[in-house]
């Protein structure tokens, strides 16, 4: 590989002046310089490889290889004790008619859509309201408040929320009662459990979308907004015609990331409902967890996780294609 490079350089030595044929001693000097240069380049390349090695090894061993391994494992029947048994696409065949799998995918997508829509709408709404505040201190106070739940772990916050939403002695039902509103069986009914998980997830992730939208609104071009204001545009019109199109990349990003995250919902249902009542909040990752680490069906569990991965890829691709029509990139 080094040969052609050297030849190319030799035809036009870096130090050669046009019009004067290179003298023999100068030629020797450029050869020396060339050799030194390639040695330097090689040393720089070695340094580069050494610098990226650690991150690259970790990523290859613990992400790239496992993705491939997941696809391979999905073709086997294996309990991690006896030797794996190749079954071809049988796992996928079983999976398509497995009610547990299809139901969990439906449950998960339902939860994900509700959570993402609320999260984006509320985050954007609150960001618009905060952006109106002139005082930086007030803005920062609200930002800190909305950010607070994101600092806690979803698992331990779910412990708190399981008490708050408790049917008999929870705080929420206490206040509903005080306001003469009907009690809700938050964690013991299908609808209630779904609502609880949606509310808890939205509540915790609100700070994320909020901060994204605050940043996006702050980066809007001031002259455009001013011009619209001078032309007498109402604030509703300003939002729909100017602000929303300009921040549409952020809307897309927030909803894509939100969807990818919530399709993997695990901590909240694991702690608060265990997937119940019945299987009404039994998400796909709960199913993968149980199939792999409790039933020790590693091949079948891999097949489910591969399907979920494919669903995530399709969602992302669809979202990008569909949004190409309305997302505005400056």
């Amino acid at each position: 590989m080094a040969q052609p490079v050297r030849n190319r350089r030799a035809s036009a030595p870096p130090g050669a002046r046009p019009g004067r044929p290179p003298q023999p001693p100068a030629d020797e000097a450029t050869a020396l310089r060339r050799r030194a240069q390639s040695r330097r380049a090689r040393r720089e390349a070695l340094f580069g490889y050494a610098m990226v090695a650690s991150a690259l090894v970790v990523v290859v061993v613990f992400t790239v290889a496992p993705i491939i391994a997941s696809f391979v494992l999905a073709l086997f029947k294996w309990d991690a004790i006896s030797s794996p048994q190749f079954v071809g696409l049988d796992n996928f065949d079983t999976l398509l008619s497995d009610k547990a799998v299809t139901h969990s995918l439906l449950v998960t997508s339902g939860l994900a859509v509700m959570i993402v829509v609320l999260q984006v709408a509320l985050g954007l709404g609150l960001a618009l309201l905060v952006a109106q505040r002139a005082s930086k201190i007030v803005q920062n106070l609200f930002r800190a408040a909305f950010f607070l739940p994101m600092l806690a772990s979803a698992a331990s916050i779910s412990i708190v929320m399981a008490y708050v939403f408790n049917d008999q002695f929870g705080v929420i039902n206490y206040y509903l009662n005080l306001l003469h509103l009907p009690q809700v069986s938050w964690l013991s009914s299908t609808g209630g459990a779904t609502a609880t998980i949606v509310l808890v997830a939205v509540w915790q992730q609100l700070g994320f979308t909020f901060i994204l939208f605050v940043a996006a609104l702050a980066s809007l071009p001031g002259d455009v907004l001013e011009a619209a204001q001078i032309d007498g545009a109402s604030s509703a019109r300003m939002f729909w015609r100017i602000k929303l199109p300009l921040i549409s990349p952020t809307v897309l990003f927030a909803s894509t990331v939100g969807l990818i995250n919530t399709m993997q919902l695990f901590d909240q249902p694991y702690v608060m409902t265990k997937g119940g009542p019945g299987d009404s909040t039994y998400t796909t990752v709960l199913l993968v967890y149980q199939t792999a680490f409790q039933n020790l069906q590693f091949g079948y569990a891999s097949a489910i996780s591969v399907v979920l991965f494919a669903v995530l890829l399709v969602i992302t691709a669809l979202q990008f294609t569909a949004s190409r029509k309305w997302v505005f990139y400056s």
Partner: protein
Amino acid sequence: MTAILDQQPAPASRAPHRRRRIRIGRLLSLAVLMVAAVLVVAPIVWALATSLRTPATSFDQPPQWIPTHPIWSNYQAVFDRVPLAGFFLNSVFVTGLIVVGQLITSTMSGYAFAMVRFRGNKALFGIILATMMVPIQTTIIPVFLIIKYLGLTDSRMALVLPVVGGAFGTFLMRQYFLQMPRELGEAARVDGASHFQVFARIYAPMARAPMATLAVLSFSAYWNEFFRPLIFLQSTDNFTLPLGLVTLQGTMGTGSISIVLAGVIIALIPSVLIFLAAQRYFVEGIVAGSFR
């Protein structure tokens, strides 16, 4: 509204109306914001307030939002009756190693991808970048098997090793180093500094801001992590805080929720302190992620 405004012949006469409407609108928006903020903060305030009540009165209604007679015994109990100190130290150990590891590997690789010329630079960076959005559930089973093969099952290192280097950190640091002038390093090279010296003495010290961003983000991700500890850890001695607290809630039942809540609050304190100290890096990190 625009049409009405255009038809009005005397702009001066409508000005006070409009101003009053704006003032009402501003008050209303402030009210909405306050209600939202109260609702968002309330569950955590409730957890704090209830952690300061005796276990017997945890469920007494109405909830006592402001603890007039705080009982600190729950905070004593989480250390006496429950191995919370152990959970806490495990979390510090695991999160600390991950943060330090990610800082080192990401700074090095991000620098090399941005500043060093070597064959395959773009391709290797592409491989790392492609893994950024890979969901953890896709890789967890093989990673579990690798961990088992390495003999690290039920050890704290099982949590650390797979994530000491990652796509996000590499990406973040590379973005930063791409904006740096190359001339500084070239001048130092002429003066006889080695490649590593140029990196360690000149460029790395300038990258404090993205390093802080990476540190706070990976701290908050791994301090709060539940899924991987649940899968990798078996003995209570190795549990990190979220896993320990969830187990605690299961075993202690509803009888002593105020003790569990004291644990939740203790787990939250380091995150809040780091957020207060480095608020802007949290925000910058989240926003930086959206421009990838």
